[in-house]
């Protein structure tokens, strides 16, 4: 929405410099996107009179004009009379005409905002000197007009500034419509001016004609049957008024000043009849529509039998802009008899369009259901000034004063006379409900110190009706009819705070007791997980929650298990991810291409799979995961599995967990295990708490191929809440430091290839764990397999720490022999 400051000034005094005004409006009404200095565009434009006009010899359309500019322009070639010569090709240039002259070195307003604005000069046209140009409305950036140069329609002295004559020394305020969605009244200049008055601390007086909700219409001079109006469904329209006018001259133009005001706020001038309806809409926020009465009768078989009804399935309507649309039952149409003639609130139909031959019109002033119109707006892509206003919810009380004013203005400007009674579907006008509140309620909510008088003044400035009961300190507030957004005490409190400036309220801190607030345990766990992985050289990433169905498929996951976005921006963002690993894998290739050969990425985030079902609140369950992927570009004989496992062990160590690695079944596919190769992956459980942590491993060959991963790539996907649960269950396991020295022995077991490392360690532990006087620690030293052998050597180091006495060599050997016996029995190992 564009607001003209000069237009505001016709209703309230504004003395502030423009930047201060913009700041004040920003602080107390609405953010201003941009302030446009309109006057700058017209700085060089001068009103001049054509004193002589002759055809240019050898041209079929050019004229040589001598113009009188009152001598205001310096440094220009003049004839003996002081006139300036300009060549002009417009058909309407003629002696005596007052024109807008763009002298040399002035800028053509139409090109003002261009990167290279067109600056005029004195130059020869067909050998004849032409000083600047005589401008058309289009060149003046006012509106498209194909009739030739602009004809100044006010009697002014040549040499006057064009901008002064038409009040174009103006500032335009650009405001985003949605910032005022809740304020239909501010979509009219008068409503906006009311706010501007009040935020400056001034009272505002709405013009009487707009306050009069049961106005007298100009005298009827004719006897046409008033249009019949039926609202077929009362939900579609609260009020519909219509009246017939005769003798309107459809070819007449509005005064240029009206046209410049319309065009500067973005409305194209059309004809006097149409301009009056638009002018009143911009002034009051109430859209009007004019139908050609004779065309309307023709559609309805000679009758004006207007119906406001829902569109019908498959029904079509040709609009003013030439488009034929197909209606739905969500659209509201205006029909005569049974034929749709307009898309209510949005756009008129071509069958009843006003044109230059129009004589008789029917004027509509109505309200329509804003929810239907919002639907219409989106479905048909109509963003007219009218629908913008209707969708804010204009009050029913407004239709009458605006209609009365339109009839009056049309009579004055086009000679139209009212020939019918005014049809009105509304029986009784509902008055706004009064709202009661106290001064202390206002101050308690705002933290302010307003007196009763402050509050009353503030509200009265915007024409609220306020009475104060001195005994109860209660205020009775009745909002004016145009404030359909005011319903409850909080709305009044907002008005008081806003109009006085929220910034005038002293910021204070709430009081609280000394109770400590604990950080969330899961947040602490996550922070610790991040720190650990960062210490381990990994890089945390964030990636989108939505992914392409192909990414799911590449990772071996079924898109059917993902929630699908119906209005996604692109197929790349169509599905919720089920786990994080696919997102990480799709980041590997691009980083390798950027020269990173050796890296680990991790992400901690929520995931969503239909497999998780709904929670107690009947919304989809959310599962947190922590995924890591580690890759190395250089090929290696080592399995990347052990690298990923190393990361997991490092994390586990940071949290005091002891992990057990179990095989992954081949036949069960969970989203989380889907990308992993079951023969080279493990399910991970914390031994002490029994919490299942997640999966670690290498990726399936098909997955690695699909994501173009290097051969050396592996990762894990684990549940950070399980880590929290495990740590909480395990507690902290401290044993006092022993006073006796520890002993170490290394043992090398030769076992069959099929025996795994854990079997050896587990048997060794079992042999030692029954003796509480000794603590033990078992760690790997060496894993060796000779070429072509079906056995391997596993060397472990056993560290024994006694608590009751120093161990003798004999005692240590007994412990070690026990271990050897247990391992040998369990695995068939021989000691090397």
């Amino acid at each position, binding site marked *: 929405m564009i607001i003209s400051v000069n237009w505001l000034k016709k209703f309230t005094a504004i003395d502030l410099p423009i930047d201060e005004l913009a700041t004040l409006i*920003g*602080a107390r009404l609405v953010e201003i996107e941009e302030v446009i200095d309109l006057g700058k565009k017209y700085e060089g434009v001068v009103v001049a009179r054509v004193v002589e006009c002759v055809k240019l010899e050898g041209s079929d359309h050019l004229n040589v004009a001598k113009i009188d500019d009152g001598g205001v322009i310096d440094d220009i070639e003049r004839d003996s009379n002081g006139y300036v010569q300009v060549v002009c090709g417009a058909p309407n240039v003629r002696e005596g005409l007052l024109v807008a002259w763009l002298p040399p070195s002035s800028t053509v307003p139409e090109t003002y905002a261009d990167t290279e604005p067109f600056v005029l000069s004195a130059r020869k046209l067909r050998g004849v000197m032409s000083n600047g140009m005589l401008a058309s409305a289009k060149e003046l950036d006012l509106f498209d007009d194909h009739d030739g140069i602009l004809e100044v329609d006010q009697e002014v002295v040549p040499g006057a500034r064009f901008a002064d004559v038409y009040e174009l020394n103006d500032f335009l305020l650009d405001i985003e419509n949605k910032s005022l969605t809740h304020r239909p009244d501010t979509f009219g200049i008068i409503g906006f001016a009311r706010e501007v008055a009040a935020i400056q601390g001034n009272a505002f007086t709405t013009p009487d004609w707009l306050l009069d909700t049961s106005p007298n219409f100009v005298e009827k001079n004719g006897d046409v049957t008033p249009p019949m109006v039926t609202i077929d469904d009362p939900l579609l329209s609260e009020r519909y008024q219509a009246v017939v006018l005769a003798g309107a001259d459809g070819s007449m133009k509005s005064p240029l000043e009206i046209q410049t005001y319309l065009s500067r706020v973005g409305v194209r001038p059309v004809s006097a009849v149409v301009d009056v309806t638009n002018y009143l809409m911009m002034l009051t926020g109430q859209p009007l529509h004019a139908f050609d009465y004779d065309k309307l009768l023709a559609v309805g078989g000679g009758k004006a039998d207007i119906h406001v009804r829902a569109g019908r399935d498959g029904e079509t309507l040709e609009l003013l802009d030439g488009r034929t649309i197909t209606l739905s039952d969500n659209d509201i149409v205006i029909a005569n008899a049974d034929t749709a003639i307009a898309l209510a609130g949005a756009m008129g139909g071509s069958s009843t369009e006003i044109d230059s031959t129009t004589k008789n019109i029917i004027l509509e002033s109505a309200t329509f259901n804003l929810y239907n119109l919002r639907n219409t707006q989106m479905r048909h892509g109509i963003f007219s000034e009218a629908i913008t206003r209707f969708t804010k919810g204009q009050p029913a009380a407004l239709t009458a004063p605006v209609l009365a004013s339109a009839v009056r203005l049309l009579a004055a400007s086009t000679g139209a006379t009212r020939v019918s009674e005014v049809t009105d579907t509304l029986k009784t006008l509902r008055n706004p409900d009064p709202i009661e509140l106290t001064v202390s309620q206002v101050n308690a909510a705002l933290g302010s110190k307003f007196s009763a008088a402050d509050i009353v003044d503030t509200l009265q400035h915007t024409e609220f009706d306020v009475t104060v009961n001195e005994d109860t300190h209660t205020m009775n507030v009745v909002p004016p009819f145009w404030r359909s957004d005011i319903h409850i005490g909080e709305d009044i409190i907002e008005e008081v705070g806003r109009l006085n400036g929220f910034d005038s309220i002293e910021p204070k801190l709430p009081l609280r007791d000394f109770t400590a607030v604990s950080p969330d345990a899961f947040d602490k766990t996550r922070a610790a997980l991040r720190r650990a992985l960062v210490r381990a050289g990994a890089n945390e990433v964030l990636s989108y929650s939505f992914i392409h169905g192909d990414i799911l498929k590449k990772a071996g996951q079924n898109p059917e298990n993902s929630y699908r976005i119906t209005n996604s921006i692109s197929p790349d963002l169509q599905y919720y991810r089920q786990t994080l690993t696919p997102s990480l894998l799709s980041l590997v290739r691009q980083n390798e291409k950027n020269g990173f050969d050796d890296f680990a990425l991790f992400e901690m985030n929520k995931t969503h799979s239909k497999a998780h079902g709904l929670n107690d609140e009947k919304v989809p369950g959310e599962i947190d995961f922590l995924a890591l992927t580690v890759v190395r570009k250089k090929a290696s004989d080592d399995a990347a599995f052990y690298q990923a496992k190393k990361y997991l062990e490092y994390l586990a160590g940071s949290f005091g967990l002891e992990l057990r690695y179990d095989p992954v079944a081949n036949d069960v596919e969970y989203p989380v295990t889907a990308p992993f190769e079951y023969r080279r992956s493990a399910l991970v459980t914390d031994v002490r708490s029994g919490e299942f942590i997640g999966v670690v491993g290498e990726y399936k060959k098909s997955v690695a191929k699909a994501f173009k991963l290097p051969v050396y790539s592996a990762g894990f996907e684990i549940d950070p809440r399980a880590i929290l649960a495990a740590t909480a269950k395990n507690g902290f396991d401290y044993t006092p430091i022993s006073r006796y020295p520890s002993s170490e022995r290394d043992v090398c077991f030769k076992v069959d290839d099929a025996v795994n490392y854990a079997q050896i360690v587990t048997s060794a532990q079992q042999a030692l764990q029954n003796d509480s006087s000794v603590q033990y620690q078992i760690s790997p030293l060496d894993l060796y397999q000779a070429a072509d052998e079906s056995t391997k050597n596993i060397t472990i180091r056993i560290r024994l720490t006694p608590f009751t006495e120093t161990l003798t060599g004999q005692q240590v050997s007994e412990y070690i022999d026990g271990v050897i016996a247990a391992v040998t029995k369990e695995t068939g190992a021989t000691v090397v």
Partner: protein
Amino acid sequence: MTDIDTLRDTLLARIQTLETPHDILKASEFKALYSVIPTLDPAERGAYGKRINQLKTELEAAASARQEALEDSSVMPLDITAPWQLNSTAPLLLPTEQGTQHPLTRELEEVIDIFTRMGFDAHESRQIDDDWNMFGALNFPEGHPARDGYDTFRTEEGYIPPAHTSTMQNRVLKAGKAKLESGGQIASISYGRVFRNEDVDATHEHTFYQCEGVFVSDDATLGQMLGTLRAFFEEYYGQKLKIKTQPGYFPFVEPGLEFAIEKPAALGGKPGDWLEMLGCGMIHPNVLRAADIDPDKYRGFAWGGGVERLVMLKYGIEDLRHFESGKLTFLRKFL
């Protein structure tokens, strides 16, 4: 034509014997099919060519399947319990110096820490929710124009990837009701991912993070809201700050405001430079009612703002798209 069918069976059988199954397309019998084309009647060539192509597609599919099976059978199981590979040594972690935390989670931790110290508890926001929590409980009736401003996505089932962290507000209020009614206050922040159907450029993302705060007590005021927000930003930037507001319309607050701070000196700010940080306001009575809190006894304020903006300002990050790009060139700048 029949010779194609016979050949098809022969070739498909042969694929199962090949160690490099895609070589089937180089088989001389198959290649020979092509050389037949020029000898045919021009009217028949099209149909014949089509048959060859069908066969080729079929052979490729069979070859791929065989290739996959071969690869699968070549996968060697590992001792998943071992600490490292046989005949090798313990793998090393990557150098600590190259590890980085994402700047967004880093700042988010900072924000949460400040609010925790100020007395707010913290919850992560949901990433999929229903219409009631996203709109209904927040005084946005069905079809309300203000819903348009949120450009929400929808799932097939009608769930919404939340467009604001206020999707948690009704839950937070309900959870705090008992504490409030026993003489306490509700002081809580919700943070997390939100989603909007927006075209992406250097300053717009469809996925971003917000942090939302709620405070309810028996005497909350708009002045306290301004004080709380100022206190947060002063702690975050470590300096005294000027603040200003402008009216803003959000159906779940009344009055509603947009909140700005004077750009801190640490960010190269000069007096008169303002940064719009968040939207805020006094919680609308209907929102309290939706959580079964009596708006005649209790009042509250709430606010919500983007997290990326804080991070971008702090580090001078030029493009919002870096955050979710997963690019190490970006991430490794935050050592």
